[in-house]
C-alpha cells in the first residue's frame, strides 16, 4: 500500500463513527423516505406502490395540509422580527456599560428554559382570565376594545407562539452580538471622521459588515419554522380550529397518530426539497463567503 493509500485509509477510519451515522441516519432514511412516499403504507400492511397518489391527496387537502403550510408561512413573520429584535438587543448589549454581563445573562436566560416548560409557562402567562394577560385585557376593555384570548382564539393563537419565541431569542441574540463584536473598530473611526452619525453608522458600517450573518440566520430561521413542533404539540395540538396546525406537527400526526406513513413521508420529502432550496440559497448568498473567511476550505 502506498503512503497516499495509507493516509486515505486512516482518514476514513477516523471519520468512521460519523460516516456510519451518516449512512444509517441520513442517507438511507432520505432514500427510504422517497421510496415510501410513493407507497400506501400503514402500520400493518406492507408498503404498496401507489405512484404520486400521496402527493396528489396532500396537494388536494385544503383543510389540513394547505392549512399547515399557510400557518407555517404566517409564523415566518418571526424571521424578520427576530432579525430586528435580535440585532436591536445585541446592539444594546454591545454598548460599553457597567453591569453588561448581568444584562446579557438576563436576556439569554429565557432561552435556557426547555421548550416543554416554555410552552406551558406561556399558556399560563397568556391565560386571559388569570394570567398576565388579564390586566392587559381589562385595560383593553376600559379603552372600549375587545379582550385578547390568545391561545383559545383562532385569530390570535399564532401570535401567542410568536411572542413566546421572541422571548426565547437568546441564542440568536448571542450570534448577532458576536457578529457585532467582529466589526473592526477602525471602520467606525473612519466613518466618524467622515461625519457619519447614529443611523448612518448602522446603515453603512454595521449592517453591511454583519450582512452574511443576517442572511445565514434568515435562512436557518426559515428552515427552523418548518420544524416548529414541541411548543405547539404541548400547548395547542394544532387548535383552536387548526389555527396552529404547523407543518411539522401535521407531519408528526400523519406518522404517529393517523399512522399514514406514506403521507408522512411525502410531507417529509417536500420538506427535504424546501431544505435543499434553502441550503442552496445559503450557499449562494453567504455560506461560501462565511466559510471561506473563517474556515479556509
Amino acid at each position: 500500500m502506498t503512503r497516499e493509500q495509507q493516509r486515505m485509509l486512516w482518514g476514513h477510519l477516523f471519520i468512521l463513527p460519523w460516516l456510519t451515522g451518516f449512512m444509517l441516519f441520513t442517507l438511507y432514511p432520505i432514500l427510504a423516505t422517497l421510496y415510501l412516499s410513493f407507497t400506501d403504507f400503514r402500520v400493518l400492511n406492507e408498503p404498496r406502490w401507489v405512484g404520486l397518489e400521496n402527493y396528489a391527496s396532500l396537494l388536494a387537502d385544503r383543510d389540513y395540509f394547505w392549512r399547515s403550510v399557510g400557518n407555517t408561512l404566517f409564523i415566518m413573520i418571526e424571521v424578520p422580527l427576530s432579525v430586528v429584535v435580535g440585532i436591536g438587543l445585541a446592539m444594546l448589549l454591545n454598548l460599553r456599560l457597567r453591569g453588561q454581563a448581568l444584562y446579557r445573562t438576563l436576556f439569554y436566560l429565557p432561552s435556557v428554559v426547555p421548550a416543554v416548560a416554555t410552552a406551558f409557562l406561556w399558556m399560563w402567562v397568556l391565560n386571559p382570565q388569570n394570567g398576565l394577560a388579564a390586566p392587559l385585557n381589562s385595560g383593553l376593555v376600559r379603552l372600549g376594545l375587545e379582550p385578547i384570548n390568545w391561545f383559545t382564539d383562532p385569530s390570535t393563537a399564532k401570535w401567542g407562539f410568536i411572542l413566546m419565541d421572541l422571548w426565547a431569542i437568546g441564542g440568536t441574540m448571542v450570534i448577532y452580538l458576536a457578529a457585532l463584536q467582529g466589526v473592526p473598530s477602525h471602520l467606525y473611526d473612519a466613518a466618524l471622521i467622515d461625519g457619519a452619525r447614529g443611523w448612518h453608522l448602522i446603515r453603512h458600517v454595521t449592517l453591511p459588515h454583519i450582512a452574511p450573518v443576517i442572511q445565514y440566520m434568515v435562512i436557518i430561521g426559515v428552515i427552523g419554522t418548518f420544524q416548529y413542533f414541541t411548543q405547539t404539540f404541548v400547548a395547542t395540538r394544532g387548535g383552536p380550529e387548526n389555527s396552529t396546525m404547523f407543518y411539522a406537527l401535521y407531519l408528526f400526526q400523519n406518522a404517529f397518530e393517523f399512522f399514514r406513513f406514506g403521507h408522512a413521508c411525502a410531507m417529509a420529502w417536500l420538506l427535504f426539497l424546501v431544505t435543499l432550496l434553502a441550503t442552496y440559497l445559503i450557499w449562494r448568498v453567504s455560506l461560501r463567503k462565511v466559510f471561506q473567511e473563517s474556515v479556509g476550505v
Partner: protein
Amino acid sequence: MAHGVLIALGGLFMLPIFWMVSTSLKADEALFSEHIVWIPTRLAWENYAEALNTFPFWLYLRNTLVIALLSVVGTLLSCLPPAYAFARMRWRGRNFWFWMMLSTLMLPPQVTLLPVFLLFRSLGWVDTFLPLVVPAFLGNAFLIFLLRQFFLSFPQEMLDSAYLDGCSDWAILWRMVVPLAKPAIATVALFSFVWAWTDFMGPLIYLNDSSKFTLAVGLQYFLGRHGEQWNLLMAAGLVVTAPLVVLFLVAQRAFVRGITLTGLKG
C-alpha cells in the same frame, strides 16, 4: 439612558420567569384571584414537594441522567476523531466528506424520522433508551464542525514536532490535542447534555412505557393530567429548568463559545 432601556427590557424578559416562580408558590385558593398577585401572602413551599410526588420525578430524573450522560460520552468518543481527521490530517476524500457533512447541517429531523423509527422498531429497540443513546455514538455534524474549528487554531509546528518524534495521529489526538482542547470539549459535552435533557420528540416517539419517560416527556404528561393546577405545573417546570440555569451560569463561557463558533442556538 441606555441603562434605563436595558432595565425596562430586562424587566420585561424576566416578567414571565418571575410569574412562574410566583405562581409556583401560590396556594390553590390564591391561584385564580381577581387581581394579579405578584408575591403571595403565604408562600406555599409545599407545592414543590407535592409536584415532585405527583409525577415520579426521581425516576424521570434518573432516566434523563442516564440518557444524557451516555450521550455525552458517546458524542465525545464519536466526534473527536472525525474532527481531528477533518482539521489536521491530509487525505484524499477529506474535502468531499467534509462538504457532505456540512450539507447535512440544515437537514430537519422530520425528513429522516420515519425510516429511522422503522429501523429501530425492527431491531426491537422501541421502549428502550437505545434509540436515544446509540445515535450519539455515531457522530454529530454540528459538534464535529465545532471541534474542527477549534483544532484548526493549533499551531502546525507543534503537531509536526510530535510527528517527527514518531507519534501516530491517534496518539497525537488523544495525548496532545485533547488536553489542549478542553474548552471546546467542555462546550461539546455541555451541548450534548443539554440537548439530551431537553429533547422532546425523541423520547415522545420511542418511549411508551411511562416508567421509562424522561423529564421533558414527563412534564408534558403532567400537564395532560393536572392541567389546571398551575402552581404545581410551574413548580415542576422550575425544578426541571433549574439544573439547566445552574449549568448555564457556571459554564456561560462554554455556552457562548459554542454558539458563536457554529452559529447554532444552544
